[in-house]
C-alpha cells in the first residue's frame, strides 16, 4: 500500500519585479493506494500532478509530509523502495544510442535482478512483441515501438508499484491503448498503480479511485461513480468543472 500524508512541496517563482515568491505546487495532499488498485490523479496541466508523482517515486523530496510504501519511507529505505517502483512519465525519455536489449539488460543490472537476465528479457520481449526490433538502436524505432520499450523497461524487474505520469500524453490512439491495456493487465496481477492524467475519459475507463487536484490541492476523491453522483454529472470532465466552479472554456 502507498500512503501519502499531508505532503507539501514549496517552490519559488519570480514575479515581474524579479522578486522571489513562495508557492506550493503541492499543498497538503493525502491519499492512499491499496494493493491491486488503480488510483487516478486527475487535474489540468500545472495542477501539481507531476510534482506529486515525482515525490512519490522518490526523485524529489517533499517540503513536509510523509510518503510510505508498506510502512517503509525514502529516508531510511530509498534503494529498497525504488527496487519495487516503476516510474513512467510523458517527460521521461530513454537512452537512444543503445538497443532495446541493452537498455533492458542495463535496467536489470540497476535493479539487482537476481534471476536469469536473458530469460527475463526473452519473456518480456515476447509479451510486448519486441522481438523484431530488440537489437535495434532505440533512436531508429517508431514512437509506438519506443513506448513499448519504455513499458518493457518498467516491467522488467517485476515491480510492485507503478507510478505513471501522463504516460499517454502526446501519443496516438494505438500507442495510448497499448499503455491502457498494460495497466489493466498489471492490475489483474495485483499491482498497485498510481495513474495521473488530464484525460478524464481515460481515468473513468480504468481507475478504481480518483483524486481530483487543482492548484496543488485535492478538490474531490472517491470512485469515479461516487464523484459523478456527488456532483450530479454524467462524466468526470463535467464533475471537474463543477467542482472548480468554472466554465468549460476557462480551462
Amino acid at each position, binding site marked *: 500500500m502507498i500512503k501519502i500524508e499531508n505532503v507539501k512541496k514549496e517552490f519559488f517563482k519570480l514575479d515581474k519585479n524579479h522578486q522571489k515568491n513562495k508557492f506550493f505546487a503541492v499543498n497538503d495532499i493525502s491519499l492512499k493506494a491499496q494493493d491491486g488498485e488503480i488510483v487516478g490523479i486527475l487535474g489540468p496541466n500545472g495542477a501539481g500532478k507531476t510534482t506529486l508523482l515525482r515525490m512519490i517515486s*522518490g*526523485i524529489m523530496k517533499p517540503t513536509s509530509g510523509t510518503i510510505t510504501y508498506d510502512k517503509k519511507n525514502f529516508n531510511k529505505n530509498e534503494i529498497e*523502495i*525504488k527496487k519495487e517502483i516503476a516510474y513512467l512519465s510523458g517527460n*521521461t525519455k530513454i537512452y537512444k544510442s*543503445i538497443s532495446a536489449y541493452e537498455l533492458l539488460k542495463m535496467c536489470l543490472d540497476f535493479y539487482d535482478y537476481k534471476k536469469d537476465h536473458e530469460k527475463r528479457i526473452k519473456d518480456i520481449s515476447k509479451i510486448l512483441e519486441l522481438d523484431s526490433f530488440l537489437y535495434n538502436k532505440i533512436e531508429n524505432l517508431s514512437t509506438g515501438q519506443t513506448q513499448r520499450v519504455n513499458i518493457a523497461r518498467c516491467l522488467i524487474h517485476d515491480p510492485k508499484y507503478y507510478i505513471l505520469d501522463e504516460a499517454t500524453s502526446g501519443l496516438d490512439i494505438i500507442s495510448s491503448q497499448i499503455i491502457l491495456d498494460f495497466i489493466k493487465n498489471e492490475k489483474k496481477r495485483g499491482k498497485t498503480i498510481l495513474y495521473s492524467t488530464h484525460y478524464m475519459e481515460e481515468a473513468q475507463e480504468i481507475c478504481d479511485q480518483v483524486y481530483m487536484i487543482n492548484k496543488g490541492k485535492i478538490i474531490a476523491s472517491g470512485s469515479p461513480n461516487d464523484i459523478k453522483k456527488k456532483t450530479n454529472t454524467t462524466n468526470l470532465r463535467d464533475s471537474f468543472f463543477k467542482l472548480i466552479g468554472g466554465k468549460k472554456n476557462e480551462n
Partner: protein
Amino acid sequence: MKTKIFSILKKELREVFRDKKSLSMMLIIPLMIPLLIIGMSYLFDYQINKSIDNNYHVGFNYKLNEIEEKLTKKLNFNYKIADEKELKKLLETEKLDFYITKNNNKYIINYDKNKETSPINLSVAEQYLNSYKNYLQANFLNKKNINSNEVLNILTIDYKNISKENNNFYVNYITTYAFLFIIMAITISATYPSTDTTAGEKERGTLETLLTFPLKNSDIILGKYLSVFISSIITGLLSFLFTIFSLIYVNNSFKLYANINVLPNISTSLITIFIIICYSALISGLAIAIASHSKTFKEAQSALTPLTFISFFPGMIAFMINIKTTSLISIIPFLNFTQIFNDVNSKNINYLNISLMFISTIIYIGIILSIIIKQYQNEKILFSS
C-alpha cells in the same frame, strides 16, 4: 555498489563511443600533434641549414688584396666591389647581406639591423675583419723579429659544452609544446563527454529516468566520472603515442637532430604517462562539476570554454618563464603538471614533487566529487527547467 558503478560506467562509455562528436573530440587534437612536431622541426631545420649553407653576399668599396681575396673564399663570400652609394642600394634591396667600407685604417661594417639574419651577418663580418687584423698583426711582429705566435696567443680561448645529454634547445622546445598540446587535447576530450553525460542527459530527459532507478547518487557520479576519466586517458595516451611516433620520425628525418636521441627514456616516459593520468583525473572531475550546473548542452559548453584556457595558460607561463619547481608549486593545480613535466624532460626527477602533485590531485578530486554528489541532491540543479 561496485556492480552498479560498473553498470553506469558501461552505459556511459557506450554513449561516448557511439557518439561521433565525442569520438572526434577524442581524436582531433591528438592527430594535430604529429603536425606540430614535424612542422616545428622542419622550420628549425630550415633556419639552421639556411645559415650553415649560406654563401654570403658581401660588398666592398675598395679593391681587395691577395690575402683579403683568400679570406673571402674561405668564408664563402660572393663579393662585389662598387662605390658606397651603389652598395647601400644593393643592401636595401637585399641583394647584399652586408658591405664593408674603408677609410684609411678604419673599416666600417654596414648592415641592416632589422633583417632577421643580421646577427649572423654581423658575426661573419667581424670574423672576416678579425682574421685579416690577425694576419696584419702577425706580419708586423714577424718583421720586427718577434714571435707573433707567443704574442697573439698569449691567451687562448676554448669552448666546452656543459649541457646534459639530450638537453638540446630544439628538443626541449618541441617536447614541451607537444606536452602542452597533450594537456589541451585531454581538456577538450573531457569537456564533451562531461557535457553530454550531465547537461546533455538533463536536456534529453534521461536524467529523470536514471534517478528513478535504485541507485545512490555517489554511484551515478562515480560511474559518470569514470567514463569521462577513461575517455580523457585514452586521448592523453593516444596523444603521447603520436608524440613518440612523431619524435621517431623527426629524429631520423632532420639534420637538426643528428647525433641526438630525441626520444624520452623509459623513466621519463613512465612519469609523463603518470602526469597525463593525474591531469586526466583532475580535469574530468572539474569538467563534470561545471557541466552538471548547466541546464542545457549549449550552456554547459559555454561554461566549459574558459577551462580550456585555464588549463593551457599556466603551462605556457611555466614554459616561457623559468620557474623552479618548489613544494608549493607542486600542489598548485595545472601549473604543477607542466612544471614537473619540464623537470622530468630536463632529466631532473624529484620524487618528492611528483608525490606532492599526486597527493594534492587526489585531494582535489575528492573535494570535486563530493561537491558534484551534493549538486545531485539539489533539486534546483536537477530540475532547473
